[in-house]
């Protein structure tokens, strides 16, 4: 009887796991099948390399996603440039420097940061970060890639901090003791022993943070101006793949080339985040094996 119960429970959990895999494959299949019709009418090369995206044009519809790809990479890169040093620094502080009292206060606060709705962060981008950027760079407005980067950095930070801290924490205590015994200072121990030992975990944390930044929609939609032109610099307005889908999917007539093309963008986005998550997973596994 007990054995049967165990079997049932086992089966239940197996089904749960299977369900997630099916959902993932289902999404992937849906994206592929709904975007295929787009390429009957759009040249794949135009789709990937033309800088003009204007499916509802007055003159002639065009479907090029390269400026969106560039925009997405720009805000993501900017976000990582800000979030990685800050995130690793904070993680190192929390794991090695801060007293346990401070850590107990700081950790929940960082976790709350992860829970702020993206629309609120976007709002702050419009009323706070935007005017600030305009002032600092002497621009007329602050709706640009820098704004998006700063906001996305704020959103990626909690992921980077808490996973990096976990990685630093799981470096065996003996490493630290050995380093200190050899006469190294605390700073030297942290920089030359602990961070290198936890590096793969930290890299994985950064890549997960990057996945978060690439897929974020509302914040960038509100704060970056969304001009579809190819951005010329970080101080130009950008329009990411996610904003384009969010703006246009609501009004697009079903089963038109435009509709399928939006799914095409979704597919490209899915593939990018898939690769990023996959890479971080591989790195994380490597690291787990090493420390065992």
């Amino acid at each position: 009887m007990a054995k049967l119960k165990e079997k049932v429970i086992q089966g239940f959990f197996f089904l749960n796991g299977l369900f997630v895999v099916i959902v993932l494959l289902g999404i992937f299949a849906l994206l592929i099948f709904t975007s295929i019709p787009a390429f009957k009418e759009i040249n794949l090369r135009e789709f990937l390399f033309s800088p003009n995206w204007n499916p509802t044009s007055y003159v002639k519809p065009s479907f090029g996603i390269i400026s969106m790809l560039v925009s997405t990479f720009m805000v993501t890169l900017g976000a990582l440039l800000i979030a990685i040093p800050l995130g690793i620094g904070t993680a190192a502080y929390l794991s090695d420097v801060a007293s346990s009292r401070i850590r107990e206060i700081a950790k929940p606060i960082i976790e709350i940061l992860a829970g702020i709705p993206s629309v609120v962060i976007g709002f702050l981008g419009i009323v706070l970060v935007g005017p600030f950027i305009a002032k600092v760079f002497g621009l007329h407005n602050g709706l640009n890639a820098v704004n998006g980067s700063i906001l996305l950095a704020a959103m990626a930070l909690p992921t980077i901090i808490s996973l990096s801290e976990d990685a630093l924490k799981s470096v065996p205590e003996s490493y630290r003791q050995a380093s200190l015994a050899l006469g190294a200072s605390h700073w030297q121990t942290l920089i030359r022993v602990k961070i290198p030992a936890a590096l793969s975990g930290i890299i994985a944390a950064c890549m997960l943070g990057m996945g978060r930044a690439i897929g974020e929609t509302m914040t960038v939609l509100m704060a970056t101006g969304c001009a579809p032109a190819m951005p010329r610099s970080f101080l130009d307005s950008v329009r990411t793949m996610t904003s384009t889908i969010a703006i246009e999917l609501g009004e697009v007539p079903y089963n038109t080339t435009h509709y399928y093309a939006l799914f095409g963008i979704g597919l490209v986005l899915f593939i990018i985040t898939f690769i990023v998550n996959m890479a971080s997973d591989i790195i994380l596994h490597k690291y787990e094996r090493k420390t065992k």
Partner: protein
Amino acid sequence: MRKYLGILVVASMFLASAVNVNAQDMLQIKGSDTLINLVQRLAEEYMEKNPERYIAVTGGGSGTGIAALINRKCDIANASRLMKSKEISQANERGITPKRAVIAMDGLSVITNLRNSVDKLTVDEIGKIFRGEVTNWKEVGGPDLPITLYGRQSNSGTFVFFRDVVLKGDYSQRMNRMNGNAQIVEAVKQDISGVGYVGVGYVKDMIGELNVVKVASRPGDAYASPLNSSDVKSGKYPISRPLNQYINGTPKGAIKDFIAFELSQEGQKVVEEEGFFPIPDEYREFNKKSIGLVPHLFKERNH
């Protein structure tokens, strides 16, 4: 396990009953961001008089509202542009006959920053600015300052109307695509180089904080302001437009009653209070033909 099953059953019953209530008593209105504040006000006034009725008004843009009407997701679609022939044939395919009612007039306003000396433009100049052919204010008699464009996103009826009537071509790729009228007003207020276009209802409280540009149809013609109601009604202001609602078939019951209220004197007073203009006679005639509603039907019903 059984306990959870019970909760599930109760929850689903709840959901089912909620859906039923929705279907019977609630009127769903969706669409234009230009119209949302006005129609929300109208709905509030109407519900005060008819407490048994419930009306939900949401935005999303004219395109979104029309798509919702076609997909049977709303009862009334607010639209600041006309339905495209493609949309009408799509609706017909799904067994929907869209009928149009004009509920207010709008003087689509071109706005600039208060510190910008440019306060009048011709339609041609506005077209050139938004097509990206004129990129510096000095080319239209202003300071030596690059122009920053603020427009709407493609789901906006104002985006389409302005493009079809003023630009007759595509918007500059460098135009910022903002999320609604209010965002454009905010952006232009802060940006000395900015220019944008919004429904006149969005500038009525902003006099003294923004320039509302006077517009002439052709060089040499008189410049008219969208804030002047007779210029908008007579068409002397060149970019005035009707604001519409689309419904499926000739309106009946609650839908008819609500639209009649909008067209009544009382409703048209709200239209004016919200900064837009009451419908002129030609559109009253149009409404009569299109949906069979005479302007004062609401009062007659109360007799």
